[in-house]
């Protein structure tokens, strides 16, 4: 199988309300930043794939309009996933592995500010048994948090630590939306939104975009002496019926760990798509990351662009490997309620 490497990643500063920018105006700067860094143009890209959700904007086929941000003359090979752009990266990687492309541009964009994210996310649930009850994303996450707390898989103190560390780590992330530090007193004084989760346990409503370029091994060395290789990638999905899942057993992630033989790898850094505070200690424990610096970017708790935050976890891991004396990094992307989909990506820097 052909090896695939990440050669560039760019992220728009995460905004609370990007009203001044339409989708095209959000995407264009990050794509151009990447092209300029690598000294290339769209003409050097064999395959383009994006991730977004039309319901966020409330406009059918909004992703097609987003495509105006990139050069489409001569016509390009293009695809789109109605998912986080991490899945667009997966599709692009397969395209390269199949030999259909040597280079791929991936971008994701999300504007959550125009709509009511809670109602919109309800629509991803089973339309017969669940959506008509309009369960919001925080309440569903809170149901999983309570299961984990009740079974002592995580503790309230670990949730507080996750919040405090995310805010502290936001200083490493020039694009973070929430940078204000928080202490235990402020956390404990906060009212629950949907118990056991309070506002600090939840990610901020965020607008933004990100882009990434990946390439086959031969091509990657034309761009850089130190490409970061995608050594392993695995995606699993659990039942859409949350009532039939064991919310304290991440069966999808466990299958991926086995598939990727992660227990044999000593990771230097990890970025997890943990949108809620309880997911941080939970996944750290499942993925055996207690000694591994995790979410040095602050993670989704300091900026959570829907349809981008998973790609951002991969991008931030890439950036960490590039700028530190690190070799192995683990990135995690998720989707659906209560960590229903999970993608694990093992990145490695060759010396």
């Amino acid at each position, binding site marked *: 199988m052909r090896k695939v490497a990440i050669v560039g990643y760019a992220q728009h500063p995460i905004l609370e309300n990007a009203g001044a920018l339409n989708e095209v105006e959000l995407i264009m700067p990050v794509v151009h930043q990447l092209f300029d860094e690598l000294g290339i143009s769209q003409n050097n890209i064999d395959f383009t794939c994006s991730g977004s959700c039309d319901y966020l904007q409330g406009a059918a086929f909004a992703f097609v309009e987003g495509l105006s941000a990139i050069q489409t003359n001569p016509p390009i090979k293009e695809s789109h996933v109605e998912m986080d752009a991490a899945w667009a990266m997966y599709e692009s990687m397969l395209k390269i592995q199949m030999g259909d492309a040597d280079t791929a541009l991936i971008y994701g964009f999300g504007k959550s500010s125009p709509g009511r994210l809670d109602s919109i996310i309800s629509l991803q649930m089973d339309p017969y048994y669940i959506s008509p009850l309009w369960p919001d994303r925080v309440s569903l996450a809170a149901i999983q948090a309570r299961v984990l707390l009740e079974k002592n898989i995580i503790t309230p103190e670990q949730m507080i630590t996750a919040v405090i560390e995310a805010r502290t780590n936001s200083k490493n992330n020039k694009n973070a939306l929430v940078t204000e530090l928080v202490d235990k007193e402020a956390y404990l004084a906060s009212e629950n939104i949907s118990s056991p989760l309070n506002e600090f346990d939840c990610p901020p409503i965020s607008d933004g975009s990100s882009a990434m370029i990946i390439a086959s091994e031969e091509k990657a060395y034309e761009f850089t002496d130190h490409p970061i290789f995608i050594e392993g990638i695995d995606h699993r999905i659990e039942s859409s*019926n949350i009532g039939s899942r064991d919310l304290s057993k991440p069966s999808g992630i466990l299958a991926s760990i086995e598939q990727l033989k992660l227990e044999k790898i000593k990771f230097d850094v990890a970025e997890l798509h943990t949108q809620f505070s309880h997911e941080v200690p939970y996944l750290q424990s499942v993925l055996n990351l207690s000694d591994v610096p995790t979410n040095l970017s602050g993670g989704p708790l300091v900026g959570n662009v829907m349809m981008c935050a998973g790609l951002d976890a991969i991008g931030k891991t890439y950036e960490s490997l590039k700028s530190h004396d690190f070799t192995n990094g683990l990135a995690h992307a998720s989707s659906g309620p209560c960590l229903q989909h999970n993608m694990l990506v093992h990145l490695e820097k060759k010396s």
Partner: protein
Amino acid sequence: MSDQKDLLRAPFELAYNYKRSSGPLMSKFFDALAEQKILGTKSSTGKVYAPAAEFDPETHESLSDLVEVGPGGVIESFSWIEEPKHHHLIKNPFAFALIKLDGADTSMLHMVTECDEEDLKIGSRVTANWSATIENRITDIKFFTLEK
């Protein structure tokens, strides 16, 4: 370039009046709600899925053996909403809860209300309350309340 303050903004509502066919199995589930009965489906392993599942996610077989479950059950987990937001169907404090109905092996998501947060525990017993109007929807179960 435009300033944030000069930007044009307009509210709009996106509404679709979808009509959903429930299919042969789920239709029976929704028809039973009109008689204030809740149905599950039993797989060849004896496991009962409720609300009625069309297939078994473990054995992958299609399911057709309907069995009555509930209307009482046990809370498996819940989240408490002291201040409901605009999209919530209940305007008083309530919980979203996973409820394992009597006779079932899986849980059903629904709402629990007419109690205080302190009254609810994982393991609390609740029972179904019914809506006055029958619409062949999951909301024909109005909500659950603590068993007296």
